[in-house]
């Protein structure tokens, strides 16, 4: 029997075994490729999405265990209508290779939803599960502070 799944407000019926991780359902079944595969063991954060606003590693959530609505980077904003946090990322020219940035942004968005003006220590605590081999961390930090300001003013 297909498994119902809601992603970015759209309802899907997924005809796959229930142990297939959400990551691969998103990427290979639905075709939402913004969420990335990096390690498969929750060690890099590239696959971070939100389920009911909470940041989770989609490589560790089996399809059958998804309870709630999934938001991916594509659901946060689009090139023509970016979310504040994406605008902050662009303003600071954060991305280098860019591969980890979907996960970084989804993690940071969850942080800002809970902690609207995070300190550097709070950023460290929330973001240290997200690996970036290009070393964009200083700009990620700056972009989170900028996004916090933008969202406060909005």
């Amino acid at each position, binding site marked *: 029997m297909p498994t119902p799944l809601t992603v970015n407000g759209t309802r899907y019926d997924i005809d796959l075994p229930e142990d297939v991780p959400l990551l691969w359902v998103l990427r290979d079944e639905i075709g939402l490729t913004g969420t990335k595969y990096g390690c498969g063991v929750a060690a890099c954060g590239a696959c971070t999405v939100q389920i009911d606003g909470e940041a989770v590693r989609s490589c560790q959530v089996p399809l059958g265990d998804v309870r709630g609505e999934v938001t991916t980077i594509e659901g946060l904003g689009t090139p023509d209508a970016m979310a504040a946090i994406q605008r902050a990322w662009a303003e600071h*020219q954060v991305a280098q290779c860019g591969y980890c940035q979907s996960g970084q942004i989804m993690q940071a968005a969850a942080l800002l939803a809970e902690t609207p003006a995070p300190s550097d220590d709070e950023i460290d605590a929330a973001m240290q599960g997200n690996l970036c081999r290009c*070393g964009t961390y200083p700009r990620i930090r700056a972009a989170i502070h900028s996004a916090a300001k933008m969202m406060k003013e909005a």
Partner: protein
Amino acid sequence: MASIGKIARRSFLIGSAAIVGGVAFGTYYVARPAPNPLTPGAGGGALNPFVLIDANGITLIAPRAEMGQGVQTTWAALIAEELDVEMDQIRVLHGPAAQAYYNSALLGEALPGKGYDKTSFGHTLAETLGRVGKVMNMQVTGGSTSMVDGYSRMRAAGASARETLKQAAADLLGVARADLRTEKAMVIAADGREIAYADLAEAAAGLDPIDAPLRDPAQWRILGKPVDRVDMVDKVTGTARFGIDVRLEGMRFAALRMNPHLGGRMIRFDDSPARAMPGVDRVVNLGNGIAVVASNTWLAMQAAEAVEIDWEMGTNPPDTEAVFDRIAAGFDGGANSTLRDDGDAATLPEGATEITAEYRVPYLAHATMEPMNATALYSGIKLEVWCGNQAPLFTRKSCAAAVGLAPEAVEVHTTYMGGGFGRRGELDFSVYAAQVAAEMPGTPVQLTWSREEDMTHDFYRPGALARFRGAVKDGKAVLLDGQIAAQSPTQQAMGRWLGLPAAGPDKGTVDGAFNQPYAIPNFRVRGYLADLTIPVGFWRSVGASMNGFLFDSFIDEMAHAAGRDPLAFRLELARAEYAPAATVLETVREMSDWTGETPEGVGRGVGFCYSFGTPTATVIEVRDTKDGIAMSRAWIAADVGVALDPRNLEAQLSGGMVYGLSAACFGEITFAEGAVEQQNFPDYDALRIHNTPTTEVRILQNQEHISGAGEPGTPPSMPALANALFDLTGKRARSLPLMHDFDLLV
């Protein structure tokens, strides 16, 4: 030019390695323009291989792989500057694999000279040699060469296209070309009439290209200032398409499992358990491993694990210590190179104090964030390959050979890459995808490596050993004699890229050591090659990634033995040899308020390396914290000659530093039973946001020629940290990674 042809016919010198046989071409073939691979739409024109104007607008071709270094943006900016178009009026494409897109700087960079002492003649020679890159199909992104390669050529391409468009307008309006000007993709006549480039492209493409002098940098509108990257919005909205994101109609997904014993073959396999699993289409024999094709990547990965396989052992020593014994045995043979031999390094100057030390660095994986992958579609007469890669023409040739087609029957689509660092200059991931696709004609297949396969089947940065003997007298360095032993990635890569045996002095083994701009009267550096076949490759900053640490750490030891401040000691050595190197040291001293003194619980170290033509100095500050030793701050000064985009340069230098510090702290590939022990990020970690230092970068432009920035940030970061730890703890790090000897914040 005649001499180049002669060299090429005999034994072509590619920097460190002389490639013998196989390459034969005449002067005309070298100088002849490569065909323009672009095909404009109706009513358009391809003014040269880099400027295409048609109904889709203005497309600039940046045929260098975008792996995060921002090359597509700055490359396009070089053309746009002279073409008189704005960055928001263009789109930038990587374009096809084509000879016209050869790298004219890569072979020049590989010349075995020191670099900083290059004369005008030396530069001309490098440029001339670079042209040979065309016939060797060197469309390669690497060696921090893109800006060196493109700086003049791409501005010239823009200027020529502009003047040719003006000529087309002049013909149309019946005025002289000199009476026309250009702005924002328009030709404008003295009377105010305007014609869009798009309306002139077809006519201009029919004219002979017109050369024009390059503008003075003082007139630049775009270059020299921060430019928003053309890939940024796509990368923050999840819409940038990496190789792993390619989606084609009817596509299937594959995973692979290769022999973990490097170099070993597969003896037998039983795929019946895998074929019984849900979603599995088939299992493909790749010779030294298998691939499973399924309806999604995860199912394919699970099924690949379920295949029962007997592996043959490899031929290299089974464990890490045995590997390093073999590297040490390299010292017993003759030196492969003596690229520096000033004065008499064999004799200890009278009254001097001698110090000796041995150093060791481990093998390293690239660990790009995006695991290796490629997508292929085979029709029987044609093969298409989609992948992030740093060498499209070599990719095309290898894939063609793998499926029995001519190279012309293979089309390579180069995507964004989630990190390259040298790994994506290799061909294995593309060839495997082609092999799988060839088994399923008409069905596109995406082959994705698990992180574990990626980590255990890399072309590793070689492990290395160094033996140093130095002497100081009256506070000065009077002798330095270094010996370094390692495998040669260059020799291996030339075999993989060109199918040619390589020999001769290997620059990579000693790069970052022999060519340091230090005036030491008795100064010798010898390289030794290790007799091993462990797969090794180019890893961000290549030889300097080893020697940055090996050589500069020993310089630090010499400074302490001489009783001198380590920064002042280096500065004095550099000042007498190469002024721009001294200036970066002075700059980093000023930026960091270096006094040579640090309070209790704080340590500071300086590191310096001249690599890829860019002298770079780094200061790292470490602090004791309750959670371990933390890197609190870092300062970098680098001289790139011409700073085309200061904000992007800052990102490259600080990013290069983080890559180096990650390796210095945690990076280590070890072996057991001939297989790599590290599997994934939990045992091959890198810096994270909380243990990356606050970093300040300053870009200098004192050097006469433009140089690269993608790699030079990496080498000096490692000794700077090790030297800071010495300052903090009094313990000298002579091997990496540092986590084994220091309580680092993790």
